[in-house]
């Protein structure tokens, strides 16, 4: 017998994401979901953001990685609570993983929760985890063809951080092309040019973030 059904395949994930979001709201915590390819600078940006904002906001971090605890250790060494999720092969975080990690996050004592997703330009864009906004990082060394190759993440993100601009003199990257194509895909995308190495552009990003959290 044939039956018609109308459902989102990721309905179960979206349901748990909504539960997470409700809990974050009730606790007064703003949540960002940070996505990028491996090595684009997610952990470096979190370190920079903490250094800039720790006197103004109480921050905690959830680190998603396929394996290992290196990134959580980098964050803890700054005196910030960090919870490591090992996805054991999965190339993205989902709402259930975050739901389980929340128990270890001191929600009552923080204003901002930063979630570092698994390094991947495709899959994380598909899964809500209960965040207030998705932020993506593209390092300029990855090539200016990325927006059109991976449009979904650019469309799902509220802000695009173009990282490693200290390397601009050494590589052939057409920043204008990256920005134009990104904005065509998502006209409301906020774009920041930063270097986590030199600190250039970081304060523009952190002021914007702080204005959303406060």
């Amino acid at each position: 017998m044939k039956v018609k059904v109308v459902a989102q395949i990721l309905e179960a994930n979206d349901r748990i994401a909504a539960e997470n979001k409700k809990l974050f709201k009730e606790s007064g915590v703003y949540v960002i979901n940070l996505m990028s390819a491996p090595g684009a600078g997610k952990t470096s940006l979190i370190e920079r953001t903490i250094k800039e904002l720790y006197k103004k906001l109480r921050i905690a971090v959830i680190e998603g990685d396929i394996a290992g605890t290196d990134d959580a250790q980098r964050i803890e060494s700054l005196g910030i609570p960090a919870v490591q999720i090992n996805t054991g092969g999965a190339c993205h975080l989902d709402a259930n993983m975050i739901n389980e990690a929340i128990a270890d996050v001191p929600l009552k004592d923080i204003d901002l929760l930063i979630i570092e997703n698994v390094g991947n330009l495709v899959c994380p864009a598909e899964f809500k985890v209960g965040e207030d906004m998705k932020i993506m990082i593209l390092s300029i060394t990855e090539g200016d063809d990325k927006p059109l190759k991976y449009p979904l993440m650019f469309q799902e993100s509220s802000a695009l951080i173009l990282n490693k601009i200290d390397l601009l003199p050494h590589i052939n990257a057409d920043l204008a092309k990256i920005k134009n194509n990104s904005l065509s895909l998502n006209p409301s995308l906020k774009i920041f040019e930063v270097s986590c190495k030199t600190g250039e552009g970081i304060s523009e990003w952190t002021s914007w973030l702080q204005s959303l959290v406060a």
Partner: protein
Amino acid sequence: MHEVSIALGLLEFAAEYCKREGYKGIEAITVKIGKASGVMPEALHFAFEAVKVGTIAEKACLNIDEVPVSGFCSNCNKSFTVKQTYVLSCPICGKSSFRIETGQELNICEMEVF
């Protein structure tokens, strides 16, 4: 690789549905997958075959309807369909006065149950 998660989400929905409605098994599931959804049909087929083993959908086949990316331009007052996974400007008039209408689907639309 997230096709495995998608396939698991699909099975979870199907199993819950059959339990609630009192069906014993599933012969086929039809899904609509948008071309801009980030899911590759071949990878989803492969993942589905792997994760269905031992579930209520063990013998089920998966039918995938691929949905192209389409939009509507308010300047031309016309709909359009493109081959790519993205639209930068209206393919008819070249303006950015368009909205995307299809292409991001990840939906279940039909099941054959017994």
